[in-house]
């Protein structure tokens, strides 16, 4: 019968994102972002050096800037109920870190109670006006 052990990991060293609002600070430094639509993340390592965009927190509003030409307006909301972030662990030899019989173990690495929701359409953005004039 397929089975996996499930453990709960309590991060001992906080690794929060600097400047992330306090409500989003979690012990592992994780936050959830939800957007309507699809965000195409590049899978090539070369493109991973380029910034994807920016998250800007202004009082109760959060802006998500994607590239230089689009932005979305969002807000921080409570997750009801909260969610646990599960991570599957599979070692190279097929045995789980916790000795699961099927070589698999799962751990809850974080409990997340807030998320940033972007429920509006992206707004077009004209950023470099001087460039366009020239």
């Amino acid at each position: 019968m397929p089975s996996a052990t499930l453990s709960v990991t309590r991060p001992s060293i906080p690794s929060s994102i600097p400047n992330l609002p306090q409500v989003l600070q979690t012990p592992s430094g994780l936050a959830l972002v939800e957007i309507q639509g699809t965000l195409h993340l590049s899978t090539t390592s070369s493109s991973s050096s380029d910034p994807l965009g920016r998250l800007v927190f202004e009082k109760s509003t959060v802006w998500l800037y994607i590239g230089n030409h689009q932005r979305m307006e969002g807000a921080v909301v409570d997750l009801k109920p909260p969610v646990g972030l599960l991570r599957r662990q599979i070692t190279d030899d097929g045995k789980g870190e916790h000795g699961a019989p099927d070589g698999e173990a799962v751990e809850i690495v974080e409990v997340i109670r807030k998320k940033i929701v972007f429920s509006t359409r992206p707004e077009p953005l004209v950023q470099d006006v001087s460039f366009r004039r020239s």
Partner: protein
Amino acid sequence: MAQEITLYPDTSKISHFHLLQLTPDIQQLLDSPDETSHLTIKSAGPTSPIFLCSYSKTFRIRQISQSNTILMVSASRSKNYTDDQDTQMDDIAEQDGEEEVEAEAPVGYLSQLPGSILECTSSSPQVDLSFVPLYNGADALSTTSSSSSSSTSLHLNEIKSQIPVSDYEFANEWAAALGVELPHGGAFRLSRDFVQQFLPVFVAAVSADRLDLERLEVARVFEAVKEEDEPVAVVEALLRRFSRTREEPYCVDREGIARWFGIQTLSDHAYKETKLGDFLSTWHASLPQPLDYPPCSLSLLTGHYVQPTPKTIRYLPCDRLPLEPAARFERLFAAKGAWAVEEIMPFVEGIERDKARVNALFMKFARKKSVAGKTVITKRGT
């Protein structure tokens, strides 16, 4: 003042992450060290439902699809959360740190999570132990399976690993099914015939030795039935099954004995109804003497019978009905066309306990009618 985070993509190992809804039940579970030490995700097979089992509780896990995109922002790349790491990405991150990212320009790494959330709902244990061989006495070890033999006997741990329920619930179901693990290692269920023969002897011997039925010890009872030449494990399995306590000293459950004999008597009428009066007489006569039992009342057999007419009865075990609501209602209406609400409830509670949702099931798969001022549940379209 606005706070700003520069986002970089992190595409490594995202498939290893899932989101699990932490309902109050699950949060309570995670706060209890006794329960979390036994947490296991189990399934009976690759295509079977998945269950989250703690020490004493079982939750069914369902995958709820999300139309929105769910992303995770982390303070670091997935290095801390994955087993191996793309070192090239590390190099890039270091370069970023030196050349572009200053202390006042924090960085977050964005990765996409699977487009679904795992939802846990409390689940009643669905334990099918019918594959466990039957025990018919020390002299006649036999099995129900045509291919089984002593060389293929099952061990308790093997059986336990095939049942996706918590340890505590398994122990209860194993005891209820009269499960026994014999000294040579084989695990069996005491057969109906064996119990019907041995339990009267057992009760008579215990009564003859004037043992305290409220405080029975395995060793004393074993001594009382020693002449029967049955293993002590069999004696203990019987005590555990027909006791109100889970451990020694065992306290004889007279109502439980009466119920068990009632169900066995009723199971002879699985395909054809019988007269209620005849059934009650047979049931009463089958009870092992000389104990006093509660009156043989149908309330003891709730969820095991249907009365096609007020004067007839037929065996209909709730735990053998389909779990899928449509199929279950079909079976119920095949057994009886119109049910009183209190009659049908034990059969519906097996798949749904919430009263509002039970009503929704009635609306969807049946029809509520008022007949002579009484609400009855009938098949749709009748």
